[in-house]
């Protein structure tokens, strides 16, 4: 069969074992355990059946619940072999003597009592016992977790404290540049493998640029480095690394690595894939944190508990920026998928899925542990009892998400607010003066002159025709309803708005008592209606109103109705409201806000009595009225006093101009934030039997992984509140401290995992080849002492990552060439001993960024909201990551699907990639731009243009042969176009396109 897509993947777990058989490295590279096969069989066939069908009555858990039957424990090796009241359940090698088998066959006992298991499964048990009943379940666990011995588990290399190894002595001193080299070279010397010499300067600068900032060096950068390095390569190279580490593009490049691990995305995923428009702050947090070389322990603490460590009531701009930064950090917790379409019965299950996403992501990203495996059962391979899973999950019990608003200009806001308050106070004072000095007399007058029950029929008010202006456009319905458009501030009918486009127009045909669903226009907008009402005396009217959608109503500048509501049609009686008319000319303003669809209104007015409570009070003799009643009457009277209403309107209109804080909304974790709601258990975590939310046991309390706690107090060490011994701190704060506690908590593993990730990205393979699995099933470190040394250096240096990059990149191991040495090829073909550095393909984002950079079209603007526009010329890290709409070109080159965190991208080489590079209009267009750059005018000769292209895209000159071949190619392409006017420039474009297709462009030595 011939090749299909020719894809290649670099991954080679088994190879480490293969090599172990040929090299004297078995001790560290992992020799196969003798009865692995048997244990695998146990894990695959036997354990699940025991758990499913037997543990309910035959386990320590059952004993704890007083449900143990027959004194038989089948949840440990010893328990199975010793058997219960009836004798040995498992006799290794002898199924016929094992009670377990006869019970399963329903011969001795009838087990399980619910029904005989299928013959196939019973046959598996028999086979297992014949195999000698291999069983890894030693002893009894600490916390009712069958099969797990935490103390024994601590012996695993990754859970050991950091060793403080000294770099070993080596014979080949000449090769050594840093302590890293001593660790690496010493291992090579032990098996007589010789490493490569240093790569040449051109390769080094290209390697360093792509590794650190993910962009190609410009030809001038290359020239400068080459001339500097002629005198002192080591010095020039060190300076180069410093410059690149200080480049703001470093954060963009390395943030992408972290975003993979964090399963970062900006939408919910699932059916409706709702957007999280403020989630990009997390991406910016990561970029800024890396660029500022934030200590990694702090980087982790903020991601776990940034919201709890930050006061959001900020006083200064710099506090505001810090708050956004710190809160955005918790984006790690809430970046996972979230399904918004939920049926009632799915909610609780979905909440546990959400918690599982958080716990699993934390486990793999920070500790390199598959904690998620302990959700349904204690971890099968690592010392992670099921209870630990729920203790961790419990730290997040009250965590939901939300858009948290931060006031970005607190000082300016305070100043503006103070200024406003001063102005406002004087307006309120004017109204108060009126209330004190004028109103009492007019009130007495009103009481004296106006009948307590005015006859409705006497002199009805005159309603003038409507005036209309609108629509005033808004971004959405909420804004249309809330925003104060100019007519609200000034009802002068001669005014026009929006450069004269909107004017007040009289509408005498818009009759009262009819629904007007065809008069107003616009979606996401507001329309205003105004009319005057003449009244010969103080009167009360009842209005019947209808609106599509929302409505606000002011009478004489006083708001009497505000209803934000969605409707399909306006109709009579949707709202009713009683209004007061003063003697004289009254003003009525109505606002109709619309979202989608049609918009309209209904209005009808009739004279009515004052409300019952008012008429009752008025009917009482004055000396019988109590203070409350008097006050009520005074308040009511204000509605009839035009002077007071005028002053009140001034206050109200001014109030609408109150300064509002300029809020930046940040998608982040929040205590009792949004999550699936299912009643009182919503923000609680229970232990779940077999991970099933329908099977809750007792409530879980915050705690951490036992295997990573070396303290008598256990989790109390981090959870006890230092201020009050009987109280505990929030679980997340304790978790953040435990994670970063090198001496007693998880800090040593945290340090190992991150330095390994740096190594992984610099070399293409970590010292631990499974960067997110440091457990017993993960790969063992190829250079354990080096790993511990690097981790110790990190901690010693205050957790700054940039010095570790520099240590790695200035080592001889990193700087060496990619040649094959005979000894290396013979003894270590997979290069586990790091005697060469082969070429590596760029990742999706770097390929795309380089295409734009080389064609001279890269927009280097940093930060801020991303885009889904595939034609964007910004760096790829600024694409919006929408789970249901991932960027095709990035997907094609193995960008992650963002559903779960990933440490190692698979690397595929498939035909659709080639199709995209060959045929996509975007890339063809970049080739055109590139061509214009290499040959800006006909003054540039073809040969010069060719060389320019090599310099720009490949950071080297073309050879004579290459120039000749490419000149010939250009001529051929030109000739094929005959007498076409731009045949030559099209031919140069073909050449530039060819350069962008070259392996040398995407594989970096």
């Amino acid at each position, binding site marked *: 069969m011939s090749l299909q897509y020719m894809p290649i993947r670099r991954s080679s777990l*088994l190879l480490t074992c293969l090599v172990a058989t040929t090299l004297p490295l078995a001790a560290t590279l992992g020799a196969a355990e003798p009865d692995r096969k048997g244990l695998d069989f146990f894990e695959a066939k036997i354990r699940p059946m025991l758990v499913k069908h037997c543990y309910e009555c035959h386990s320590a858990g059952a004993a704890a619940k007083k449900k143990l039957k027959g004194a038989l424990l089948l949840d440990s090796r010893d328990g199975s072999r010793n058997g219960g009241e009836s004798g040995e359940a498992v006799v290794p090698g002898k199924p016929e003597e094992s009670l377990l088998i006869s019970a399963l066959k329903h011969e001795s006992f009838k087990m399980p009592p619910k029904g005989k298991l299928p013959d196939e499964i019973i046959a598996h048990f028999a086979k297992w016992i014949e195999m000698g009943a291999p069983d890894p379940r030693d002893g009894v666990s600490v916390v009712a977790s069958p099969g797990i011995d935490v103390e024994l588990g601590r012996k695993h290399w990754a859970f050991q404290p950091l060793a403080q190894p000294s770099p070993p002595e080596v014979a080949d001193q000449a090769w050594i540049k840093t302590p890293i080299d001593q660790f690496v070279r010493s291992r090579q010397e032990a098996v007589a493998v010789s490493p490569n010499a240093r790569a040449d300067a051109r390769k080094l600068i290209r390697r360093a640029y792509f590794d650190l900032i993910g962009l190609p060096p410009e030809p001038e950068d290359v020239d400068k480095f080459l001339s500097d390095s002629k005198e002192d390569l080591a010095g020039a190279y060190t300076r180069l690394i410093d410059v690149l580490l200080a480049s703001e593009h470093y954060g963009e490049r390395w943030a992408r690595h972290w975003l993979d691990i964090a399963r970062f995305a900006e939408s919910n995923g699932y059916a409706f894939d709702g957007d999280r428009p403020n989630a990009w702050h997390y991406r910016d947090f990561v970029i800024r944190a890396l660029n500022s070389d934030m200590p990694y322990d702090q980087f982790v603490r903020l991601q776990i508990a940034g919201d709890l460590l930050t006061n959001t009531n900020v006083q200064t701009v710099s506090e505001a920026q810090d708050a956004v930064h710190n809160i955005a950090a918790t984006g790690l917790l809430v970046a996972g998928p979230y399904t918004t379409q939920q049926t009632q019965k799915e909610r609780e299950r979905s909440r546990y899925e959400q918690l599982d996403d958080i716990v699993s992501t934390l486990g793999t990203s920070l500790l390199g542990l598959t904690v998620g495996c302990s959700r349904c059962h204690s971890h099968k391979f690592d010392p992670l009892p099921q209870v630990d899973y729920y203790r961790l999950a419990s730290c997040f019990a009250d965590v939901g998400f939300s858009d948290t608003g931060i006031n970005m200009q607190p000082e300016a806001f305070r100043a503006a607010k103070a200024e406003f308050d001063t102005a406002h106070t004087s307006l309120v004072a004017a109204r108060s003066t009126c209330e004190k000095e004028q109103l009492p007399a007019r009130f007495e007058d009103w009481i004296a002159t106006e009948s307590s029950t005015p006859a409705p029929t006497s002199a009805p008010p005159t309603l003038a025709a409507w005036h209309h202006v609108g629509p005033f456009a808004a971004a959405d319905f909420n804004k249309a309803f809330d925003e104060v458009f100019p007519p609200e501030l000034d009802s002068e009918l001669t005014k026009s708005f929006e450069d004269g486009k909107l004017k007040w127009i009289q509408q005498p045909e818009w009759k009262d008592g009819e629904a007007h669903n065809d008069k107003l226009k616009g979606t996401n907008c507001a329309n205003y209606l105004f009319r005057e009402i003449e009244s010969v005396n103080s009167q009360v009217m009842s209005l019947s109103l209808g609106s599509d959608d929302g409505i606000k109503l002011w009478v004489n500048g006083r708001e009497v109705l505000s209803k934000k509501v969605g409707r399909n049609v306006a109709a009579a009686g949707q709202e009713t409201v009683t209004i007061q008319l003063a003697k004289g000319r009254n003003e009525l303003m109505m606002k109709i806000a619309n979202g989608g669809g049609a918009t309209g209104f209904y209005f009808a007015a009739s004279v009515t009595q004052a409300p019952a409570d008012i008429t009752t009070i008025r009917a009482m003799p004055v000396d019988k009225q109590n203070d409350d009643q008097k006050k009520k009457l005074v308040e009511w009277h204000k509605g009839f006093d035009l002077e007071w209403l005028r002053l009140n309107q001034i206050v109200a209109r001014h109030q609408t101009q109150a300064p509002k804080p300029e809020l930046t909304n940040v998608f982040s974790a929040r205590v009792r934030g949004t999550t699936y709601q299912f009643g009182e258990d919503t923000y609680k975590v229970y232990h779940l039997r077999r991970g099933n939310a329908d099977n809750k046991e007792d409530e879980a309390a915050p705690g951490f992984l036992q295997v990573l706690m070396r303290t008598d107090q256990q989790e109390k060490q981090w959870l006890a509140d230092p201020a009050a011994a009987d109280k505990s701190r929030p679980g997340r704060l304790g978790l953040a401290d435990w994670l970063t506690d090198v001496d007693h908590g998880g800090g040593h593993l945290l340090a190992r995992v991150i330095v390994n990730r740096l190594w992984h990205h610099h070399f293409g393979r970590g010292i631990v080849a499974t960067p997110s699995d440091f457990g017993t099933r993960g790969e063992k470190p190829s250079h354990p002492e080096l790993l511990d040394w690097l981790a110790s250096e990190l901690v010693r240096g205050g957790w700054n990552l940039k010095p570790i990059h520099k240590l790695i990149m200035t080592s001889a191991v990193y700087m060496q060439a990619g040649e094959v040495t005979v000894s290396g090829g013979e003894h270590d073909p997979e290069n586990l001993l790091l005697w060469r550095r082969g070429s590596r393909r760029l990742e999706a984002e770097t390929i795309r960024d380089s295409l734009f950079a080389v064609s001279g079209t890269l927009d280097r603007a940093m930060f801020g909201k991303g885009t889904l526009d595939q034609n964007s010329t910004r760096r790829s890290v600024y694409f919006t990551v929408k789970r249901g709409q991932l960027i095709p070109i990035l997907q094609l080159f193995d960008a992650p699907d963002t559903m779960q965190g990933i440490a190692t991208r698979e690397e595929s080489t498939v035909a659709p990639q080639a199709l995209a590079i*060959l045929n996509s209009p975007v890339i063809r267009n970049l080739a055109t731009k590139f061509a214009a750059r290499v040959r800006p005018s006909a003054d540039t000769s073809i040969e010069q243009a060719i060389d320019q292209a090599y310099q720009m895209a490949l950071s080297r000159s073309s050879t004579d042969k290459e120039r000749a071949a490419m000149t010939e190619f250009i001529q051929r392409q030109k000739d094929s176009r005959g007498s076409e006017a731009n045949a030559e420039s099209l031919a140069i474009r073909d050449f530039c396109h060819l350069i962008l297709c070259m*392996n040398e462009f995407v594989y970096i030595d």
Partner: protein
Amino acid sequence: MQHPMIGSPSSRREFLQRAGLGFGSLAVTSMLHQEGVVAAASSPTNPLAERPSHFDAKAKSVIWLFQTGSPSQVDTFDYKPELAKRDGTNLAGADPKTGFFTTSGKCLKSPFKWAQHGESGAWTSEIFPNISKHVDDIAFVYSCYSQSNNHTPAMLEFNSGMIRQGFPSMGSWLTYGLGSENANLPAYVVMHGTKPRGGDPIWSSGFLPSVYQATSLDPRGAKPIDNLERPAELTGEQQRSLLDALNAANVKHAERRPFDRDLNARLESFELAYRMQTSAPEAFDLAQEPQHIQDMYGLNRAESKDYGRQCLIARRMIERGVRFVQIFAACPNTPGGGVSDVPWDGHSDINVNHRACASTVDQPTGALLTDLKQRGMLDNTVVIYGGEFGRTSDSQGAAGRDHNPNAFTTWFAGGGFKGGAQYGASDEFGYKSVENRVNAHDIHATLLHQMGIDHTKLTYRFNGRDFRLTDVEGEILRKILT
């Protein structure tokens, strides 16, 4: 990663060969033999190279006709006269929470006439005049159930075994297991009209390498595959000339780096891309089919032309060696509660909804079975037909049915399935599966088995755990296999 079919990654072996060093030790060679690599070796560096199955396969390919939105079992293939008898009466034990909304608790009879067909006497409702002619080639499973009563999770379950996103779909697992038979076409093709609710993640390759991902396309469009068309201003000759010059440069570059094997793979990927520009459009070119075939698939009827195209392209694909084709039925009319992304979702009126959807799918489905059979392809092609769950036996509103994950029918034809078989049963109202209950894991296990794969052995290590398509479950439905 250890590939379960290849046995071991081959880079070391290839490295040794290329380096001219031969095999370093007997141990390695025997290990490779043991893992089946040396015997298998077609092109072991290529993860899509065709690979031997675990055992002899009954089927070479699968066509999955996914009826998005979930047809009602009691109005299609699962005949329940008891419902008619008790129409409008209380359905004892009905749980209003079964559906997505709430249901009435009153029995709703099927609005359709029913009849028995073929020697097997299988019942079908009147809306399937064409499919009913094939019942003797069909194995019906009346006892399916799914975990979720919500479209997207249930579709995820039927594709990946999990109701959560992020797990590989069956087509990806199959491609991972068996590689690809045709060098010039994708191994796993998904065809949709409006994308089903949930979109691309429904056919995700999850944590499997992306080479195993589906090629998804909407055959209603003019350009079903991205970037397949040469830029307009470049002639074939000019592009060939560009590729020749590119190859020359790449060969030079690779010569100096003999151990970076990806370099040659990338060079070859450009050659394949060049060939695909011709071969892929050919597979989609239905003008090559005679008129009577086009008519048989209903390309001449507005209701059935889109789904008919899907079915006809599917046949052309598997003829050309595509292993797994999944069709999400494109229905132009979805009255009665359906929406274009879940056409069969007859919440408000089963009668009009199912008649409309059936008028789309019945003719092309029947034509596909006829066509495969007349070409002798049905024997080694599994056709599977069904939705993500069923619908309630009690009504929603007056005439609709809500979601019901507890019972529905899926049927299989060809590829070693027993024609005329009837397996499992729902209760007398079709409300719950009661006998030989079958879930997605069982269906996946069975399909993999027919393709020659032991579902318990097809594993992939991700984040420290060995995953399977069938998780820790999956029973092969042996009773409906020949």
